[in-house]
């Protein structure tokens, strides 16, 4: 079970994440994007999902990553991500509810390059019961 006390709390990612050109190139290649001067609009999920995994699976929160299904996703992109961005990441658990035996957690990810907020995204993650 997910700890209900985690709702409303913001958890900081432990390490900074540096975006490299080869990461952008690889992501762009999969979707047939040839302009790699900026990252494709969904690129930041690469950062957010791994942050979610390390943050949300901590025992004090208790998400079982092996039973996870992605329900929905939203991005608000304040400027495109480019190679050389160094992000600090945070995950805020906005809501938690239980429906049909599944735990449904809504998480917000904020990616900051220094003081600049570059991308905010929201993910609904469903932990199947």
């Amino acid at each position, binding site marked *: 079970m997910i700890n209900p006390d985690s709702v409303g709390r913001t958890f900081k990612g432990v390490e900074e994440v540096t975006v490299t050109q080869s*990461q952008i190139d*690889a*992501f762009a*290649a*999969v*979707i*047939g*994007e040839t*302009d790699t001067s*900026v*990252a*494709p*609009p*969904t690129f930041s*999920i*690469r950062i957010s*999902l*791994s942050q979610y995994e390390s943050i949300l699976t901590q025992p004090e929160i208790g998400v079982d990553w092996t039973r996870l*299904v*992605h*329900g*929905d*996703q*939203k*991005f*608000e*992109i304040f*400027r*495109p991500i480019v190679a050389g961005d160094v992000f600090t990441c945070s995950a805020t658990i906005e809501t938690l509810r239980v429906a049909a035996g599944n735990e449904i957690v809504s998480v917000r990810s904020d990616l900051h390059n220094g003081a600049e907020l570059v991308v905010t995204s929201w993910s609904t993650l469903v932990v199947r019961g």
Partner: protein
Amino acid sequence: MVNVGGARMIEVGMTLPEKIFYIDRALLKAYADASGDQNPIHQNEEFALSVGLPNVISHGMLTMALAGKYVTEWAGGSANVREFSARFIKPVIVPAGEKVDLTVVATVTEVDGNTVKLDITATSAGVKVLGMAKAVVVK
């Protein structure tokens, strides 16, 4: 519909040209490596069946990334996409040795200056796979 400088005016209700992407197991592997999402339900058929799935399924975020490519192409580049959202309502099923379609189309729902809102429809094998898929672009 009028022509301005050779370009079609963008109007509410206008439907953009459809585009078909193809997804196969090799693309799932490439996306797993590019995104870091190595969940075996997207690569290992035996594992996918063992957890009750009909077959290997695409990453929802690969489906969304391809729909994002559709939006980006129309918007004139990734830098022009400001908001993008979708629900993963049905899996894209990817049997071994097959290329399955992801058919994407969009309709203009709002125009405010150079900001355009789109409703996106994405289907695979005739089944709608994204719900409430929307984008805001500047054009």
